[in-house]
């Protein structure tokens, strides 16, 4: 891993799913720059896509006039991804457990679970101008990160 730390990359994206490809391409660029490769890069990418899809679908309700904020940064020891939307906000604590037997065959409700599984820490907060802000962190030094999937 290099000591190169260029500071966060910040994007404002229209609420369109096509923009997930752009965001993932930027993430891959940052990962390669910072020596994050293989499975870690893949699982961080999955978490990023879940976060952005959540912001577009549930935060901004698919309104392309509303934007999604993305920041990819952190330091030598940690990758930090922040995703914000311009929606009404939501209460993540009331989300159903996707592992509960009664939820197993539901067609939705797994996105946040995957983010928690593939990242080391995720936290929701209210944005200064409203909306929801999601902060995800990945420890780049932990031996447990040799494989991206960890127990939720």
């Amino acid at each position: 891993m290099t000591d190169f730390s260029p500071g966060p990359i910040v994007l404002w994206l229209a609420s369109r799913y096509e923009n997930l490809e752009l965001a993932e391409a930027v993430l891959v660029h940052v990962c390669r720059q910072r020596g994050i490769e293989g499975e870690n890069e893949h699982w961080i990418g999955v978490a990023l896509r879940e976060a952005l899809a959540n912001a577009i679908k549930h935060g901004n309700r698919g309104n392309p006039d509303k934007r999604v904020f993305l920041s990819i940064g952190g330091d030598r020891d940690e990758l930090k991804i922040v995703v914000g939307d311009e929606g009404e906000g939501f209460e993540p604590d009331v989300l159903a457990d996707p592992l509960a037997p009664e939820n197993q065959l539901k067609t939705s409700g797994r996105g946040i679970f995957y983010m928690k599984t593939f990242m080391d820490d995720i936290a929701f907060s209210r944005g200064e101008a409203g909306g929801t802000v999601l902060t995800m962190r990945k420890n780049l030094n932990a031996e447990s990160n040799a494989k991206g999937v960890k127990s939720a």
Partner: protein
Amino acid sequence: MKTTVTTRDAGDVKIIELHGKITIGAGDLQMREAIHAAIAGGARKLLVDMKDVSTIDSSGVGELVGCYTTATHKGAKLKLMSLPPKISDVLTVTQLITVFDVYTDEKDALASFA
């Protein structure tokens, strides 16, 4: 990689081959449309070949679960084949790997329908 879905028959089994990403706004709806079309066309033995799937997200997983439920309600069987490790991991952490019948190769998968 652009998502594509192709289908072929192996006896009375409809094999649905997925290629690329099965993610929101990309392959999730294509997969659902292909599976629903097969069921609507009378197929009752469905085998989803995932060996060329590069990524699946919660939306893709949700559609897969929805297709499984639809197939079951229609009296059809939907099984999965040739899951790449990363796709298997995504299904494993949500314990869905125990819901689906999963096979490593086509021969065993086809034999399971007999």
